């Protein structure tokens, strides 16, 4: 038995019929064709599917679409504005925070909530904050640097160097 739900995805209202068993990530990727949100595991391990639901980050492979009824969802496609890239997007780009880019949307969305709650996190707070997100290729150092860069940018502080360190 299908149920009609209303969600706002990246600012656009949608009314969709879904089966109660459909996962939110499938609704976003298949029904609404926004494929920036990825499925890395389907079992709440990797965080590639992380989206914002009413401003809180959540793994959309672990939430049913019907649970998102009436909610506002933001995915990676909703980060940039007419004014340009989101500071996190800029941070990842400037700091070589991605290689294959598969984990990146989830990392950035997770970091949006992290920086919203804690605008100036320490390195260990960042590492703890993204501990639900796995990256299999870049390694976490540059991801941490990317988030530190975005934090500085969003606070209007001096931007950290984006030069790699040779040790």
């Amino acid at each position, binding site marked *: 038995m299908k149920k009609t739900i209303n969600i706002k995805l990246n600012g656009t209202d949608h009314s969709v019929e879904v089966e109660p068993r459909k996962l939110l990530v499938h609704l976003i*990727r298949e029904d609404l064709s*926004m*494929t*920036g*949100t*990825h*499925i890395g595991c389907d079992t709440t391990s990797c965080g590639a599917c992380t989206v914002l639901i009413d401003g809180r980050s959540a793994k959309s492979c672990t939430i049913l679409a019907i649970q998102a009824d009436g909610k506002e969802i933001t*995915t*990676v*496609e909703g*980060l*940039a504005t007419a004014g340009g*890239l989101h500071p996190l*997007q800029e941070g*990842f*780009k400037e700091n*070589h925070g*991605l290689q*294959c*880019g*598969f984990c*990146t*949307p989830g990392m*950035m969305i997770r970091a949006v909530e992290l920086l919203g709650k804690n605008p100036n996190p320490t390195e260990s707070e960042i590492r703890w904050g993204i501990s639900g997100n796995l990256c299999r290729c870049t390694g976490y150092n540059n991801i941490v640097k990317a988030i530190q860069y975005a934090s500085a940018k969003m606070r209007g502080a001096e931007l950290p160097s984006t*030069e*790699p*360190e*040779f*040790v």
Partner: protein
Amino acid sequence: MIKCKTSKEIGGMGHSMKRKEDARFIQGHGNYIDDIKLPGMLYMKIVRRPYAYAKIKNIDASKALAIPAW
């Protein structure tokens, strides 16, 4: 920390170069295999043999073929 002695302009030796593909990845337009939809696409499942070492004499696919695929 070692300071680079060359300039980026001479070819980037000892420097990281900005990548061209990042713009689409960070905006969710990567187009990975799972993002591609083509007409008539089917699902595939690999059925592995239940024995570690054996000779395949024949494959009976009748049950699989009986499932409506699209």
